[in-house]
């Protein structure tokens, strides 16, 4: 029997919000209806959560209940001939990768960490370095199971006439429990990547290389030096790659070191960020050119340092990710980089990428055509929040949107303006389901 138990220390990846929640971790799908009935009887809201790699408050339900889905991690059916994999929602990309590679396949879309669950990938409609060609993960979902609090388990397909599929993909877990997912996999000859690294000197350089790379490279992404100003504003490193057709299909079977505890605040001051950015820039320039690299280090450089979020200390960090439409992309990106450089709160990592025009299937999917910028900021209280407010103003002005999975302080008005399908989405929210994020958005409505 599975029960809810009050649990502290269930944090999102940003580690800013610390609240107690009642957590249950079932190991069998048959336990889920009972947990939902318990919540209904007690008048508490519920949220199914995965590997807690969302940074903000969309995967938290403080004072209420959460169902930790990571124990529901069984494969259900893999059909290499039809290129479909069906698995329980708690299975991680980390577990899926060796299985897929063995038969010469790969995940159709993967975010920058492989420690996410399938259910989380659907609920956040995640994207990756191949968005310009492949779209979001949701574009590859063929079927999924959704258990609602009324006890009905739906089997939803992309052509679902009720709209529940479109609400569930990118729906932040608010439409019910995603119990299993069937998705299409792509062919990949090896666990290696043919890659090229190209430095660029400014923002125009980025847009030029991005435009030139997208036809010939399945995967593209750029890292930007947030502290560069003036003529160097927006300088950085462009990385592009494709699956190597031949080579080993085995993934390097080792996990890297872990950050053992939360670092003290002073570990990450402006000076150390500057040193890190300069070093990263220099190191990448040294290695500019072509290389064959393991898929794990190409897609998941940060996974090599487990619990890397702890370096931001007790107060945690904010990740901030925006997308602005193509017409406003250059101006808005420039303005954001200027604002960040002027604030001197240098982002540890700034990732820049152009999204393609493949339409995301979810009503609340974040990716849309345009340019996306992702930034990390250590939480320094009001200084950080006011910087994020200034960035919000630029995104708002450009007609852009923010990623709910990221910052945990997304202003409700920017959420509404960024997601015009919000009204249609609200009809599909399960009355028993909620999250800290959702209550914050509703409170302002």
């Amino acid at each position, binding site marked *: 029997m599975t029960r809810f138990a009050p649990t502290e220390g269930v944090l999102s990846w940003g580690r800013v919000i610390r609240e107690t929640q009642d957590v249950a971790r079932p*190991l069998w799908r*048959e336990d889920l209806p009972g947990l939902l009935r318990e919540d209904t009887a007690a008048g508490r809201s519920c949220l199914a959560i995965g590997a807690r790699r969302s940074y903000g408050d969309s995967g938290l339900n403080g004072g209420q209940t959460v169902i930790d889905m990571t124990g529901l991690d069984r494969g259900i*059916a893999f059909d290499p001939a039809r290129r479909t994999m069906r698995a329980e929602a708690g299975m991680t990309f980390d577990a899926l990768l060796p299985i897929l590679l063995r038969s010469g396949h790969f995940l159709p879309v993967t975010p920058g960490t492989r420690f996410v669950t399938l259910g989380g990938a659907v609920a956040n409609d995640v994207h990756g370095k191949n968005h310009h060609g492949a779209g979001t993960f949701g574009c590859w979902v063929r079927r999924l199971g959704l258990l609602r609090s009324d006890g009905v388990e739906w089997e939803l397909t992309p052509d679902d006439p009720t709209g529940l599929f479109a609400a569930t993909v990118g729906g932040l877990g608010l439409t019910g429990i995603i119990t299993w997912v069937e998705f299409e996999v792509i062919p990949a000859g090896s666990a290696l990547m043919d890659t090229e690294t190209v430095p660029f000197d400014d923002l125009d350089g980025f847009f030029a290389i991005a435009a030139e790379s997208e036809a010939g490279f399945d995967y593209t992404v750029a890292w930007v030096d947030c502290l560069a100003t003036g003529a160097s504003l927006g300088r950085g490193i462009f990385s592009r790659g494709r699956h190597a057709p031949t080579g080993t299909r085995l993934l390097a079977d080792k996990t890297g070191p872990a950050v053992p505890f939360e670092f003290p605040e002073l570990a990450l001051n402006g000076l150390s960020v500057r040193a890190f950015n300069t070093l990263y820039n220099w190191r990448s320039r040294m290695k500019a050119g072509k290389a064959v690299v393991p898929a794990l280090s190409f897609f998941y450089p940060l996974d090599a340092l487990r619990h890397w979020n702890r370096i931001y200390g007790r107060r945690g960090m904010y990740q901030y990710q925006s997308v602005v439409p193509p017409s406003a992309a250059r101006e808005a990106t420039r303005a954001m980089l200027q604002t960040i450089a002027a604030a001197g709160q240098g982002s540890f990592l700034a990732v820049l990428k152009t999204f393609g025009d493949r339409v995301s299937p979810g009503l609340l999917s974040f990716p849309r055509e345009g340019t996306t910028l992702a930034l990390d900021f250590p939480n320094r209280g009001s200084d950080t929040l006011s910087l994020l407010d200034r960035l919000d103003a630029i995104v708002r002005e450009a007609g852009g949107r923010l990623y709910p999975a990221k910052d945990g302080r997304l202003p409700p008005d920017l959420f509404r303006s960024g997601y015009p399908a919000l009204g249609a989405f609200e009809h599909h929210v399960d009355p028993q389901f909620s999250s800290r994020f959702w209550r914050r958005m509703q409170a302002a409505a």
Partner: protein
Amino acid sequence: MRVIILGATSAIAEATARLYAKEGADLLLVARREDRLLAIRDDLLIRGAAKAEVAVRDLADPHGIEADFARFVAQIGGVDHIILAYGILGDQGPAERDPAQAEEILRINFNSAAAWTLAAAGALEKLGRGSLVVIGSVAGDRGRRANFIYGAAKAGLATLVEGLAHRFAGQGPRVVVVKPGPTITPMTESFNRKGALWATPEQVAAVVRRAADRGGPVLYAPWHWRFIMLIIRHLPTFIFNRMNI
């Protein structure tokens, strides 16, 4: 590699089975619940098992154990490793007052497990090779008020395995008891799991998998429990009695 797992739907057994699946082993999964066995079987096949079959059996039922074990071996065409991983924790308080409940804890965790252990050891002896890994518990190392009926059963099982290991010394077959510390499984769900000493089923499974290849006859999972239990076993009674463990 052919592996029989008795009690295959337990969390530790499932984590162990995944390690074997990754190696491309042939697996036979035995437990009571067919639906759960089939879910685990499908998963293991996806994770790389060359073969995964199920056998539905109430392992606590003492009738026909030897014949059924022979049937399991025949079902996957021989055996290399056997994992015995079923058991119940029971409810210590009521069991102290109700002999029927105490008897059930002893019957499942000791009587039936001992019978399967003897049947499996007999099969390995005939083969002249192979490994049997039995899941015990640190609770069997020293009787504590919290769970001494369960602990007594696991102590008996560990003694049985040690005796078999002694008998097989210098011969082909290996018999090992792995004693996990507190592990995050459905069995311990009612516990307050605060503290750093809780292990995951995956951590215990890694020890079980290694135990099938080398070491023993008594192994702890994770390894630090060997030293913790060494201390606890040797605490003088006047100190032990004042501890709330």
